[in-house]
């Protein structure tokens, strides 16, 4: 089990390390002079000020030196300052990251709560009308753009019915974005759970258990559900990354004050320190969640736990 986990942790560290390199290179991949572009929108910047910024960002040094400087600041928890406002990037991100994580977790909860039982039911009634209907709904759900689902929910619940606020950051404001992100992912969970459960139901040991006359409900609970849920757990790790990505769009629809909305604003304003910080934060979160899920998987799967 420790070998399994240590490989995963090593892989995660490698991913974050490569991200730091890519993030340093990012600013040089910008066509033209990044400092000029960053300040193109604010008038009255003198050439001296631009040179000052170039120096403070270290952009006048060779790239390896810049990377060393970046890493030196990073280990001290310094991600630089924002171009607009000059606040520390880390503070700006830490202020908003909890909002994004709350949104992603709430959405994950909704997705699993709806998707897994539907998938299980469809697998249980495989080939029946229930199964076909549920799977048609699931494929329609996968095809529906989540940003459109967001607008539709906004229209019905906030505009037409007036039950929920259109935007803001209270608990009631969480309902619509979480529902948007959760529902569109529920379909993916339903499809995955169904195929995973069907795989397990076709296994010899399940057939044996049924053949020797164990009650179907007992076989499902003891043998099918446990084994069939394992791939779903693995999927949660990957899906969390999708949730974080989806949050970028959903936060913008509902003006939810998370890092996704911040990142899109930063792209428009060409605020590269924020973009760098966002990419780094995003990959750290995704890696941490992936490792946690892998640990959970290792504990749940006896084949790995006992190895």
């Amino acid at each position, binding site marked *: 089990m420790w070998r399994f986990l240590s490989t995963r942790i090593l892989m995660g560290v490698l991913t974050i390390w490569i991200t730091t390199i890519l993030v340093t290179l990012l600013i040089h*991949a910008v066509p033209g002079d990044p400092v000029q572009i960053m300040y193109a929108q604010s008038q009255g910047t003198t050439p001296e000020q631009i040179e000052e910024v170039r120096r403070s960002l270290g952009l006048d040094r060779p790239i390896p030196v810049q990377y060393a400087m970046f890493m030196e600041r990073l280990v001290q928890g310094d991600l630089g300052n924002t171009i607009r406002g000059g606040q520390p990037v880390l503070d700006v991100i830490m202020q908003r990251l909890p909002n994004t994580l709350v949104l992603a977790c709430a959405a994950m909860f909704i997705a699993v709560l709806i998707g897994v039982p539907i998938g299980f039911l469809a697998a249980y009634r495989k080939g029946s009308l229930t199964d076909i209907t549920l799977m048609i709904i699931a*494929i329609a759900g996968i095809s529906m*753009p989540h*940003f459109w689902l967001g*607008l539709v929910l906004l229209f019905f619940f906030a505009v037409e019915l007036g039950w929920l606020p259109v935007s803001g950051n209270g608990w009631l404001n969480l309902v619509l974005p979480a529902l948007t992100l959760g529902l569109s992912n529920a379909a993916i969970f339903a499809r995955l759970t169904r195929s995973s459960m069907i795989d397990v139901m076709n296994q010899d040991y399940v057939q044996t258990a049924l053949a020797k006359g164990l009650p179907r409900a007992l076989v499902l609970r003891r043998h099918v559900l446990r084994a069939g849920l394992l791939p779903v757990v693995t999927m949660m790790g990957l899906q969390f990354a999708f949730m974080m990505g989806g949050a970028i769009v959903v936060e913008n629809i509902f003006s939810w004050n998370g890092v996704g909305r911040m990142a899109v604003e930063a792209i428009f304003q060409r605020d590269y320190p924020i973009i760098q910080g966002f990419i780094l934060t995003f990959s750290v979160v995704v890696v941490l969640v992936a490792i946690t899920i892998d640990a959970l998987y290792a504990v749940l799967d006896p084949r790995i736990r006992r190895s």
Partner: protein
Amino acid sequence: MSVAPDIDVSKAPPGFLWRLVRSPSGAIGLVIVLLLIFCALFADVLAPFDPNKMGSGGRFMPPSGDFPLGTDEFGRDMLSRILFGSRITLLVGAVAVGISLTIGMTVGMIAAFRRGWVEALLMRSTDVLFSFTETLIALSFVAVLGPSLQNAIIAVGVAGIPFYARTCYSAALVETSKPYFEASIAAGAQPTRLVLVHLLPNVMPTMIVVATLGVSTAILAAAGLSFLGLGAQPPTSEWGYMLAGSRDYINRAPWLMTIPGIAIAITVLGFNLLGDGLRSSLDPVERK
């Protein structure tokens, strides 16, 4: 549709196309996709108005005889905009998947064929890129290149590479371990022959399915970027961008929000169904 056991199988029309059309998802998917291609090809004939001409009708006219899908905030005909939008959507899907597919397959096949440190290097970097997730890769690309439709397409295409590389790699790996492949190595076949004659045709079915489903993902991703304002720029009649604009008029003109959304959903559904149909008609196990 079960075939009675006494029917002579040799008389049944052969080929996967027949199997595809006979599966409900494949048939519906194919119809949607063909219809979409038709709309895109003949958009200038089918569209009653110039999609970008302002004041073709009044502002915010609800769907009616003259304007079957209504007009937008500039009095532009929505039907014409949707029809021309299908061109952009198909172009986005084709080019983005083209980028992911060519580079991803090259990487995957080289890794499976060369093995050793080449394989380790290529597949480990693919793993790292894969854990970045497609959204982050696409967003980073747009952040660097700047918002435009062309850059959004490149971003989505590049973001898909790790997934295609992985899939192609595992499909090719299965082939290289088969006896016929080892036999042709033993018979002294050249690497080019091995790759082009043996590997490529045998990974193709898998990749066709993946690419068809991938068109859906690419269209959704690019529409998402345009929705955020990071893709298509005004006055392009790109569906995601049209949706973004509709948010401000959600009270006055709900059809501006409904129509592009349905257009995207149907298109994506079409490619998803076609992909599912292709999978079951190309897969020898599911074929039974």
